């Protein structure tokens, strides 16, 4: 009986190291209405503009709790205000960064519009190889920065930015 109790105690001690893992294979997080300032007087020449945002906390709590194997599969940017489409954009760069550690900045997208895409209303790029952004994603604050170039509108306009990604939520004491 004594040996049995000892075994039970040992087993309970081993079992107390419980673990949890949730595998999210496809999650989309969209930031609506990212404002981009207009460029007065840019009617004939190409100019550049930038915008950045952080996902609102309440909605991204679950997404931010993904803490392992966070991989970006797709980025989509669509016009949501001020402009009918994004055909005026010739190039775009999207990066993910954390203000506290610039070394963790990851480039998500480097886009140059080709002639065949001249009629595209939105920009949607699927990564040939998923980009691992775990280190940046698990930081306390994660920002997305967008830089665009082209014949930009003179008035303010807005876009919706969607990231499609996968990852795992794990917990091990």
């Amino acid at each position, binding site marked *: 009986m004594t040996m049995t109790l000892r075994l039970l105690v040992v087993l*309970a001690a081993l079992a107390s190291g419980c673990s949890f893992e949730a595998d999210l294979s496809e999650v989309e997080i969209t930031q609506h209405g990212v404002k981009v300032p207009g460029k007065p007087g840019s009617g004939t020449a190409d100019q550049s503009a930038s915008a950045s945002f952080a996902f609102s906390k309440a*909605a991204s709590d679950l997404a931010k709790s993904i803490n392992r194997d966070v991989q970006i599969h797709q980025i989509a940017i669509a016009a949501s205000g001020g402009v009918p489409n994004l055909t005026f954009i010739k190039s775009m760069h999207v990066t993910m960064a954390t203000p506290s550690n610039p070394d963790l900045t990851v480039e998500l997208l480097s886009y140059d519009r080709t002639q065949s895409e001249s009629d595209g209303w939105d920009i949607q790029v699927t990564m040939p190889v998923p980009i691992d952004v775990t280190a940046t994603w698990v930081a306390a604050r994660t920002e997305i920065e967008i830089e665009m170039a082209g014949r930009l509108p003179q008035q303010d306009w807005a876009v919706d930015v969607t990231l499609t990604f996968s990852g795992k*939520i794990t917990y091990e004491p």
Partner: protein
Amino acid sequence: MTARICIFGSVFLTATCLVLGVAAGRDVSVAPIPSDAGAEGPARLFDAGANSAPDLLPVASSPPIDAGSANMQDAAAHAEMRAVDAAGSADASAPPAESAVAVRTDPPSVPVAPSAPGARRVSIDRAFPQQESLPVVTERLAPVPRKRLPLLGVVADVGAPDGLIASLAVRPLKWVRLSAGGGSNFVSAGWRAGVTLLPLVDGISASFEYGRYQVGNANTLASTFGADSSPVLERVGYEYMNMQLGFDYAYHDWVFFLHAGATRLRGQLHNLDSSIRDATERETGTTGTTNVVVRQDPNVKATAPSLKLGLAYYVW
């Protein structure tokens, strides 16, 4: 009882032989039953019959000597044939008959052809060397039946993540208990099957079980514990696998057990989108500018401690 049968049979056969001998006009000698022919007597003679087959002549399997023939030579021939048959049986290691009678005649030896190819030819003298204890009726003692362990039983146990389970149990071996049954985790119905190994029959045990619970609404259970309802809890279901060590204490046909160990859980989370929207609305009052959509319900795996307390009763 055995001794009484021996004595009664001996007296009866002695009288029969005497009558037959007198009727045939031959000298017939009948040995008395040994004084120690109790429970051991027949057994010893029985053993002698097994080792040297002709010593005892099975009666049950042989035709009775017809008193009407009154021919002791025929009787001796019968006896020798029976002895030869008995020898054949002994050679084949056949179990001895339940009773046997040994008869000695004078002249003791009658040439008789073997009843079967390969059978030994045995004389009555060899069959009863130097013994005066004839005839003897032996009765094989019935072996004391061993009490078998009950095979079938019912089990009830409660624990986590098993919930409350009622099972049927089968014990094909004394150190193995198979069980299968159904129950509830207070959210939905489910089933479980498993095997428990008891290397010492009673005491330490090792259990391996697999179970599954259907999808059910866990908000009612959550509200019992004061938790807020959540869309995620509307569809909760899982499968699990237990690996437990424990102690099984048996008392007659009852077995009390306590098992503890680790459980591997697997399931899916549903309605995560609704849960996120709810959280957003509570925080800001309106839907925020960030929207999260979970395109595929996440698969969840967890390893956690498990505990189970139960009672088994073997009914047959």
